[in-house]
């Protein structure tokens, strides 16, 4: 797999054909305006192929997976496990190392709660226990989903939270490294959902490993947008959400190294995750079942399987190149607008397709409202990265984010809308 921005890869993506697969993109909003959807970083749209896969599953094969011996139960289980296998291949992992969760937030919480449960789970789980004197390291750019669960884990165990800082240009400040012999976990985003910055995963893994700390990668903003191999990155855990990668909401994935999952105590307990149950106590199934208590989301998992098929057919190199071209166009055009300041790297080096910015004299909400009036959907606010916004001294930013179906003309519509907002509020 080579990830290079070759024009060949870019031209491999036929945007018009792609757009035809997404029914929602042809609707209008706010009195007949064409929808310009630039909020895929929050949630992406779903192609017909995903919607059809869910419907076909529900119309033909629906049953509780891993339970029952009837034909539908077999077919449903096959569909569910086949989705797991294809998603695993998509992220360079073995199917047995993939746990289905509700979303990335649940995946990260699963690890955090398993670690607090480790205190009473016997010698196998000892490597996961934390206590006073131990430290968890995160970064200042994390989404709340990869920050608050660690704050809570610290609160429950007496461990201490430390963090890498972010430099003014929106990169991780590797000199602010708080990793020490006390560090037990290093949790960080693959790509910032605000700055677009891609973090130096290999370097962070190297530093974590040097002190024997576990690594947890928040891959929410990377898996949807570029080729990613968890085994290649050599992280211990990783989490992502289906709804940001053209798949359904209600399904996400936690990846864990198999030896770690095998030793890790469960988070949620109940049906489907047991090996043997007696009134006096129970033993638990091997992973991934140990971490999938209860009847799981099934049509959603099937839909996510269809989403990775769809993305694979396009090719993640082509997706990455397409998004890079759009991001470059946005960065160039916004740089031409006086009074607009991009928060994050202004070049394409180690940078993905989310562009956050502030407009001098116009609050992000007000910019967003003018854009919305023109049919342009962006996100405004702190995007669940409040400490990062505080770091940059802003309460809120406007964030545009792209995916396979976006076009250069849509980037131009964004920039036109920003100029219109300046005009409307009398700052240009």
């Amino acid at each position, binding site marked *: 797999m080579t990830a290079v921005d070759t024009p060949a890869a870019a031209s491999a993506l036929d945007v018009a054909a792609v757009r035809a697969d997404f029914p929602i993109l042809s609707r209008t909003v706010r*009195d007949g305006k064409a929808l310009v959807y630039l909020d895929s970083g929050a949630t992406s749209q779903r192609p017909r192929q995903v919607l059809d896969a869910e419907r076909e599953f529900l119309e033909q094969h629906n049953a509780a997976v891993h339970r029952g011996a009837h034909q539908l139960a077999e077919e449903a289980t096959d569909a569910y496990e086949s989705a797991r296998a294809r998603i695993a291949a998509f992220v360079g992992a073995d199917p047995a190392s993939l746990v289905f969760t509700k979303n990335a937030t649940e995946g990260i919480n699963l690890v955090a709660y398993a670690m607090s449960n480790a205190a009473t789970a016997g010698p196998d789980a000892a490597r996961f226990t934390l206590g006073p004197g131990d430290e968890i390291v995160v970064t200042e750019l994390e989404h709340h989903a990869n920050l608050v669960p660690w704050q809570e884990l610290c609160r429950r165990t007496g461990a201490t939270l430390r963090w890498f800082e972010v430099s003014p240009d929106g990169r991780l400040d590797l000199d602010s490294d708080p990793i020490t012999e006390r560090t037990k976990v290093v949790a960080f985003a693959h790509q910032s959902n605000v700055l677009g910055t891609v973090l130096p995963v290999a370097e962070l893994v190297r530093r974590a490993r040097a002190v024997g700390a576990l690594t947890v990668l928040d891959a929410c903003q990377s898996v949807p947008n570029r080729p990613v191999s968890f085994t290649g990155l050599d992280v211990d855990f990783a989490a992502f959400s289906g709804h940001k990668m053209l798949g359904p909401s209600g399904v996400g994935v936690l990846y864990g190294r198999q030896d770690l999952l095998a030793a890790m105590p469960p988070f949620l307990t109940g049906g489907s995750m047991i090996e043997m149950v007696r009134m006096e106590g129970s033993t638990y199934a091997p992973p991934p079942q140990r971490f999938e208590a209860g009847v799981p989301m099934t049509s959603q998992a099937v839909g996510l399987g269809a989403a990775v098929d769809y993305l694979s057919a396009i090719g993640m190199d082509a997706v990455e190149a397409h998004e890079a071209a759009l991001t470059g166009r946005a960065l160039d055009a916004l740089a031409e607008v006086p009074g607009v300041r991009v928060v994050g790297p202004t070049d394409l080096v180690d940078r993905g397709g989310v562009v956050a910015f502030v407009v001098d004299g116009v*609050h992000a*909400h007000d910019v967003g*409202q003018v854009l919305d*009036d023109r049919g342009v959907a962006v996100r405004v606010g702190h995007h669940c990265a409040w400490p990062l916004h505080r770091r940059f001294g802003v309460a*809120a930013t406007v964030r545009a984010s792209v995916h396979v179906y976006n076009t250069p003309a849509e980037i131009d519509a964004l920039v036109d809308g920003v100029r219109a907002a300046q005009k*409307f*509020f009398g700052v240009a």
Partner: protein
Amino acid sequence: MQLEQMYQEIILDHYRSPHGAGLRDPFDAESFQINPTCGDEITLRVRLDEGKVAEISHETLGCSISQASASVLTDLVVGRSVEESMRVLTAFQEMAQGRGQVEPDEDVLGDGVAFAGVARYPARVKCALLGWMAFKDAVVRVSGDVPGTAGGTSDGKDAT
């Protein structure tokens, strides 16, 4: 264009030169409110005098709607009895949360009726209410309860 319905000239005027802006002393109570969805903040001070709202001052870090709303609030409640001001607050809140279905009473709300357009945009309702929730909270801090309103939930600050 729908934009003008929301950003009526009155709102833009208040936004450009907000009344009550800048924190002043002395005061009886201060309230700090945030909108957790966007991070906007207001610090609002109230001074009461013999059951009347004598002064309001505020520092608002937020969008045009939240700033203009705090300004209109200042105009509407200063000089009124606390009880009257709570009636205005209730009317403003009903309009703001009315999804555009509540016909505002200009006699009660004055310039506040300009926010009727905001009520059609659910995402902005909290912006319009931020200052009002700070005012209510500050009054509670002075008087221990809120005269003239039922219940004590401040809808402006629930997390979503």
